[in-house]
């Protein structure tokens, strides 16, 4: 697979605290990558390093297959970004704000009207940004990130401060950019619900460590139903199942069965009963994607 972003043991330390620790980010070309983690997990810090705003303490970053340290300018020409709260010059109009960025990229002036149209701010083109609502400022930030028609778009919590219809609108915009322009998009969020409908890949970061990275389908599969058994003697039950070559997850006080073909469950129960194990309960656990995510990050936090 071709990766647009590839980090190797990316680490950032502030004083004694590791904000990001040995993160191997892999963002496949043309995909929407959801970067998930609770507050303070290290998302923004990782993104800052991807943009060359911060120097990693350790590790290296490749974007478009090139080393970020050595070819930063060439890389950034093809990257659009919105980091944390949108930045803007309040005393300038929306148009002038974009013009300060357009000049640097050297793209045609027409592009300013285009991106304002995309985020539906055309009507306030010549209004000072000072008077904009939070949502409008956020849109302006997204507009500036699109000026150079980037190949890689990095959006750090882009729906911050948007109302529900605004969130849906941005979500549709992201889908459209991915589909129509073939952009690779990294979008961070602390809410799974924000990205589970659009992301192809997810990376879950908690306390600076990447604790899950794969397609959202794999994550879904992990969240599917599980059957758990309560029995009188777990140790013996374990041995019996292992010697019968049956797949199950064991712990001191439960047996969980990842597969839930009815036939498999029946087999397992029969084997246990035939070996004089008392089966107290057979329970089906349903977990939503959200609770999988919560559990992943909670385990990491030691809760």
């Amino acid at each position, binding site marked *: 697979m071709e990766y647009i972003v590839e980090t190797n043991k990316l680490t950032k330390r502030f004083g004694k605290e590791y904000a990001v620790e040995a993160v191997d980010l892999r963002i496949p070309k043309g995909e929407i990558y959801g970067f998930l983690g609770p507050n303070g997990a290290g998302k923004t810090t990782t993104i800052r390093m991807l*943009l060359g705003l911060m*120097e990693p303490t350790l590790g290296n970053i490749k974007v478009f297959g090139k080393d970020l340290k050595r070819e930063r300018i060439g890389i950034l*020409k093809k990257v659009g970004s919105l980091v944390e709260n949108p930045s803007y*010059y309040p005393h*300038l109009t929306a148009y002038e704000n974009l013009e300060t960025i357009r*000049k*640097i*990229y050297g793209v045609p002036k027409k592009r300013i009207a285009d991106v304002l149209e995309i985020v539906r701010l055309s009507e306030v083109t010549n209004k000072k940004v000072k008077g904009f609502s939070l949502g409008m400022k956020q849109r302006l930030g997204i507009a500036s990130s699109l000026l150079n028609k980037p190949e890689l778009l990095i959006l750090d919590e882009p729906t911050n401060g948007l109302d529900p219809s605004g969130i849906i609108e941005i979500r549709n915009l992201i889908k459209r950019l991915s589909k129509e322009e073939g952009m690779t998009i990294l979008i961070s969020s602390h809410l799974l619900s924000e990205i589970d409908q659009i992301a192809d890949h997810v990376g879950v970061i908690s306390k600076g460590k990447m604790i899950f990275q794969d397609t959202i389908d794999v994550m879904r599969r992990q969240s599917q139903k599980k059957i758990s058994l309560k029995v009188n003697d777990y140790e013996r039950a374990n041995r019996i199942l292992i010697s019968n070559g049956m797949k199950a997850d064991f712990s001191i006080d439960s047996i969980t069965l990842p597969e839930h073909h009815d036939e498999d469950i029946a087999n397992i129960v029969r084997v246990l009963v035939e070996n004089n194990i008392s089966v107290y309960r057979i329970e089906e656990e349903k977990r939503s994607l959200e609770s999988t995510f919560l559990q992943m990050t909670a385990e990491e936090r030691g809760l």
Partner: protein
Amino acid sequence: MIGKLIRTDFMKIRRKGIWFLTVLGPFGVVALQMVNYGLRKDWFIQQDIYSWFYYIRNVIAFTPFALILGIVILTSFMASIENETNAWKQVIALPVTKWGVYLSKYTTLAILLVVSTCLLTLFSLGFGMFLGLDGGIPYLDLIKYCFYTFFASLPVLGLQLWVALVSKNQGIPITLGIFGVILSYMAYFLPDWLIWKWPSLDNQWDEPIINVCLGLAVGLAIYLVGMIDFMRRDVK
């Protein structure tokens, strides 16, 4: 790249009153002479110092104070434009080098100050001609002294810009600036090695050109130190 950056920096200072200050500064210096000569014209004539030579000295006496004050205000305005909404993260994530961004800020300020200096020369010339001072008009001296003051103040510009651009808390550059303004006002009593003395063009050898050379050399050094420090800092 630098050209583009400078043009965007000039866009960003729109409607900030920066151009107004650039004109107000030199006008203020000459306005002081208007008051001075308005009130004491007869005395000057009596003392036989109603000449271009003394007129230029009078103008130059107030210039350092105005110039240092101007530098403090302009640098902190310049920093506030990017600091206000932390636009640094947007600027540095563009395909530009950090040293380019720093150089552009410095150059923009230097251009504004050169404009101020030119205006000072013109305003002084105009009012001097209006006064009908004795002797021929010493164009060269006038230009020389106005620009000498500017060159001698470059270290202060470098220092203020550096501190303003890297401080999260703008109280630090402002406090430093106020000290500088006060020091420049007492230039006569300061030791020769203090950068705030240099714009006064005063030194123990009575050679203004020494202050100019020091200003250029130390100004460049402070600029480089500031730029390197800016480059190695993380953008928050």
